[in-house]
């Protein structure tokens, strides 16, 4: 089961098999990314399942997942490769003992033996039988110089190491980039990718996700939770709850043995769903009770 899907429908079906409920648009983009061997650039609010796509793809295609978490100041040494200075030092001492000439030493010292491979170089290692899934997570957290470095990796799937030469992947890895959009990613990066904006799901899809991700959830509770969260997303909040929060919240409610929503239990667990004090203050109390009421009737209607 490690071949790539044959059509858009097939992609959607196989994602679903692995508990990822994708809408048609997403399935299309994923299928194209696999078929055209293009990186996939996913942008969207936090907690809408961007990272999860990469994980699911790795499982679905039975490939290794290599994850690169971005942060400010991320540089070549931690993203692609670093020379093993300790071993190089040792080699120099040994060379002195054995009387190896300068030229030979210089050639030896920056050979592949002394290279520590990090995520990017691992992903394009030509020795690999099966290309892995490379997840470059939260690219917006890295700084612009790093984006510039990525360009070579994304368009040619190769990395040039000055001392060693160019390393090129035998088969391109499946690359997924995600961004929470705390800043704009440069067009040069986007140009090399297929772009998709991951939306919050509609009620039907969110319910489906919940039933898949939280096995054993009571039907009533799931419906009410979804209606509640959907309603919450219509309110002017600073940070809207994502699907990840919905799932967490449902798990929390199940831990508290809640079978239906009631204002009290909502009050106590609101912190799982909303992460800003102002948002919590806004929803707490009578507002929460009103949304619960609304959610119950909406859920009852089906």
């Amino acid at each position: 089961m490690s071949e790539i899907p044959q059509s858009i429908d097939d992609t959607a079906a196989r994602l679903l098999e692995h508990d990822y409920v994708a809408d048609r648009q997403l399935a299309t983009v994923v299928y194209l990314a696999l078929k055209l061997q293009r990186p996939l650039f996913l942008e969207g609010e936090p907690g809408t399942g961007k990272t999860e796509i990469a994980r699911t793809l790795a499982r679905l295609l039975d490939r290794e997942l290599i994850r690169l978490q971005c942060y400010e100041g991320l540089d070549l040494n931690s993203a692609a490769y670093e020379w093993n200075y300790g071993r190089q030092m040792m080699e120099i001492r040994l060379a002195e003992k054995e009387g190896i000439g300068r030229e030979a030493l210089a050639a030896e010292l920056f050979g592949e033996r002394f290279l520590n491979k990090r995520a990017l170089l691992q992903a394009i290692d030509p020795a690999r039988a099966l290309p892995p899934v490379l997840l470059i997570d939260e690219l917006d957290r890295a700084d612009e110089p790093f984006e510039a470095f990525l360009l070579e990796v994304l368009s040619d799937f190769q990395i040039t190491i000055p001392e060693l030469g160019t390393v090129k992947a035998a088969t391109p890895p499946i690359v997924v980039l995600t961004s929470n959009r705390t800043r704009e990613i440069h067009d040069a990066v986007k140009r090399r990718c297929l772009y998709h904006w991951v939306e919050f799901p509609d009620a039907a899809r969110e319910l489906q996700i919940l039933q898949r991700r939280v096995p054993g959830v009571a039907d009533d509770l799931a419906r009410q939770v979804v209606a509640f969260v959907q309603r919450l997303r219509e309110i002017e909040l600073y940070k809207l709850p994502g699907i990840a929060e919905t799932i967490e919240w449902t798990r929390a409610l199940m831990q508290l043995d809640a079978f239906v929503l009631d204002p009290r239990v909502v009050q106590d667990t609101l912190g799982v769903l909303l992460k800003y004090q102002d948002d919590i203050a806004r929803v707490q109390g009578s507002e929460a009770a009103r949304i619960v009421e609304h959610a119950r009737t909406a859920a009852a209607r089906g």
Partner: protein
Amino acid sequence: MLPLQQGPGHLAENVMHFGRVLRAAGMPVGSDRIQLALQALRVAGLQGRRDFHAVLSACLLGRIEHRELFDQAFELFWRDPDLEGRMRALLLPKVQARDAPQPAAENRRLAEALFPPRPQELPPPPPPAQEFELDATLTFSAREQLQKADFETMSADEWRQAQRLLAQLRVAFEPLRTRRGKRANHPGRPDWRATLQTMARHGGELWNLRWRQPRTRPPPIVVLADISGSMSRYSRMLLHFAHLLGHADAQVESFVFGTRLTRTTRLLKSRDPDIAVAEVVRAVDDWSGGTRITACLREFNRRWARRVLSGNATVLLITDGLESGEVGELTFEMQRLHKSCRELVWLNPLLRFAGFQPRAAGIRSMLPHVDRFMPAHNLESLGELVAVLARGTRARPRARGKRLP
């Protein structure tokens, strides 16, 4: 181009034209993207219009703001049975312009892209008036006077000269330490890679140790300018100032607000400050209108703060703070703004009055949440602002770490 012949029927051609329409409407659609779309269409195995839409948007779209424009263009372009006629119209703008039915224009930019105006309708832009005036025309004392002159009461001539003086302002920024390194000449962190390279070259001899030090960069700056009636002249000069900062290698985001908030960063990119500021004035409808500070700050906090502030930005807020409505909300929004930036500088032209007292409720509720409260009504005060930005003597205590020398 290679895929054109292989595309099914006229589809390839149409996709190409569609790409051109999008480009004319202002989306960055290069020919590489169009090629990609054609490739994708061949492998996708389409089942109806929705897939077609999905494929094209995946290949031609680059950012979410463009989606609405894209959807409208898609609707317009692929719905029309008389596609060929329209295509001809598109290619021969002179013939169609009069009798072709104008579409219900969802979007002016789009309409212009689909039906480009006839070239002769556009008068050639008047050549910019060139002025060759020497700076020496200003005597020292005239300069001094100009430094202290209020922007609002300047004559047109003085205004121009003030602009020129402003452009000569030397801008420096407080260096912020980044986590990225560069080579250094003095001991700090050892640069093992460079050191070992020299060692290898010299047969294993430790020739000299190489060093690295952290790189610095200026803090990002966000300008929020009030352009309501009472503020418009000051804000105009501040936009010139923002333009200057942006071209002195700081990262500048600018917004103007009156009754609503408008992002003007892109408009200020033009090299010529006059053209840049004129662009802003043209793009904003509420120039010199009323002001709704609270609503605009709320919108900034909700929609933009997370994207442009990134925790260490310096915010220059220029407004007189004369908010008429409820001030409780204003306090809240100011507090939030204050918390999400590194330094909040409030530039208030009302400070030009010697005996200024913060009596108005709006001003009183905003004051506790700013790090600095400075005047910005003449060149001298802008000079002070520059000095403050350069020194980086922070009003707020630094959370951790040492200040760089």
